[in-house]
């Protein structure tokens, strides 16, 4: 209510400028090439993420999976330039537009308007003193909508996200909502700016099982209806199965595996992906002990030479400790960085 009134006329011009969708680069909605994130400018500075390349086609729904310490969240945040003390090298493109390497300006042009992001804790994104309807409407008004239209659109967005009796609930405050409902409001805010890409960083991790399933279902529906490109960041492979088309697996700052979701679950190429998958407790089987991946993920700065995964890998060979495996085609047609799939002679 309070702050929504002051800003609406501030930058109406920005929206028409950003609105024409990316006709220029048909193949990709988001692409990263050789992106590294370091804590400083020197080559010796601590690298959180190293040499990650991937691209996501418009409308594609991709999950990025990895344990804490894998660098997946920092990488997702880097797409929007959220961590200023990080030095980004390589190139990040949204559509055909290069956003990295131009400081704040590059990122500001895409934040919210072309790339929206939702986080694990919905309360962190909501103003406790503003009604949820007003918060969704605020985003719309920043986009230049009139007050009445904004409110109307806000209500319809909320109801599209499965909030029953949205017109009435729009006048409630965030604390009157459950965690799952708050996350829906945050999603409505993200969608209000009509972005091309949605990055969801562990959006259901803090939720109860039922709320998690509902939020994922509704997230799947609205993004599918809009043909939105989605990058879902999660540590939980099991939530990925029903949601994503493709899975990117991060480990110790590297992208180690990239395959279609069916192939990842049916025959995971990378030993780490397989380890992650097998460690999930399931309702349909109950082994005496769950298979585990020995050891722990190495922190940045203590990452091993050669393949980052080799100290924990059940298939480690002599070459694994010496040569960092380059991404090679996986049997299923994706990419995998593992010596089980590299041809020794092509290796160097």
């Amino acid at each position, binding site marked *: 209510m309070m702050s929504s009134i002051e800003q609406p006329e501030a930058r109406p011009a920005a929206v028409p400028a950003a609105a024409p969708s990316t006709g220029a680069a048909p193949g990709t909605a988001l692409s990263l090439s050789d992106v590294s994130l370091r804590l400083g400018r020197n080559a010796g500075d601590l690298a959180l993420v190293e040499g990650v390349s991937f691209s996501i086609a418009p409308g594609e729904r991709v999950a990025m999976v990895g344990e804490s310490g894998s660098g997946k969240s920092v990488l997702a945040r880097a797409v929007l330039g959220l961590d200023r003390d990080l030095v980004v090298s390589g190139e990040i493109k949204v559509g055909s537009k290069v956003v990295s390497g131009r400081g704040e300006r590059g990122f500001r042009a895409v934040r919210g308007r072309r790339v929206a992001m939702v986080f694990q804790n919905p309360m962190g994104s909501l103003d406790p003193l503003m009604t949820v309807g007003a918060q969704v409407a605020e985003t719309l008004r920043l986009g230049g909508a009139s007050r009445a239209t904004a409110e109307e659109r806000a209500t319809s967005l909320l109801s599209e996200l499965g909030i029953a009796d949205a017109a009435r609930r729009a006048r409630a405050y965030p604390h009157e909502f459950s965690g799952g409902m708050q996350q829906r409001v945050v999603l409505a805010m993200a969608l209000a700016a009509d972005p091309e890409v949605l990055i969801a960083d562990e959006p259901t991790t803090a939720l109860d099982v039922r709320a998690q*399933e509902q939020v994922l279902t509704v997230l799947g529906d609205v993004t599918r209806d809009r043909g939105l490109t989605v990058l879902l960041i999660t540590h939980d492979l099991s939530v990925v199965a029903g949601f994503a088309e493709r899975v990117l697996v991060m480990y110790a700052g590297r992208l180690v595996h990239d395959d279609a979701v069916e192939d990842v679950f049916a025959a995971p190429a990378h030993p780490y992906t397989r380890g*992650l998958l097998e*460690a999930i407790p*399931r*309702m349909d089987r109950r082994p005496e002990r769950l298979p*585990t991946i020995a050891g*722990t993920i190495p922190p940045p700065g203590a990452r091993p030479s050669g393949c980052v995964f080799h100290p924990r890998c059940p298939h480690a060979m002599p070459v694994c400790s010496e040569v960092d495996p380059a991404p090679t085609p996986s049997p299923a047609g994706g990419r995998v960085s593992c010596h089980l799939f590299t041809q020794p002679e092509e290796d160097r």
Partner: protein
Amino acid sequence: MNADGALLDVRGLSKTYRAIGRAPVTALDDVYFRVPRGEITGLVGESGSGKSTTIRCILGLEKADDGWISYDGSRLVSGGRGLGRARHREIQVVFQDPTSSLNPRMTAGELIGEGLVVHGLCGSKDERADRVAELMTLVGLDPAAADRRPRSFSGGQRQRIAIARALAVEPRLLICDEAVSALDVSVQAQILNLLLDMRERLGLSVLFVAHDLAIVHQIASEVVVLQGGRVVEAGPCAEVFADPQHPYTRELLAAVPVPDPAAARARARERRLRVLP
């Protein structure tokens, strides 16, 4: 009272929170369940189901309005100083977030050895250090790391410290309050296996509180389902999961993520049809 051999027997536990100017909130309403000796019992429910209040009452951190908690055949007076030191030793707890449940200013060794000091379990300092090293090895930590503080350990390692700290005083009942929920799957699997090992090797009984049914399915032999402060279903895991009687249990089961893309998508489609007006 428990000739049948349950280590912990909870009956009729009720608690209502009253605050001036607010409607009273019933947190627990006639909660009952048992933890058999040497078994792992799952206590399942979502946030607000009363799981936390139940264990806080068992631990004596809160006082129930009504009800009966008996431990090893004798009644536990819940609330305040009711639990004597001996009881404190026998019932230990591992909390969800190992970051906030370990004093940041103490070293791993001090944390693990604290119970030994408090209960006078190890005479000399050397003896204590040996026992700490033994416990660290038991839970899969490197004893050389005893002088490091919690922040220099990973989340999974911190949870191992918390478990070692609890096991140090040789408890008979370990309460795990969402102890693996915050952990990565691979670490979670390690901790679950560790608990199963401890049960086998030390004869530990475990009350395993969780909201994730798949985890309970993996680890527990009995399960109790809480909803809104009431027990809606209880029984052996195999039976409850194979043939859930209460609609809430069925709903919880239906919400467990299926790690299989085709099945998960089919289920999402079917759900959508049901959920949409």
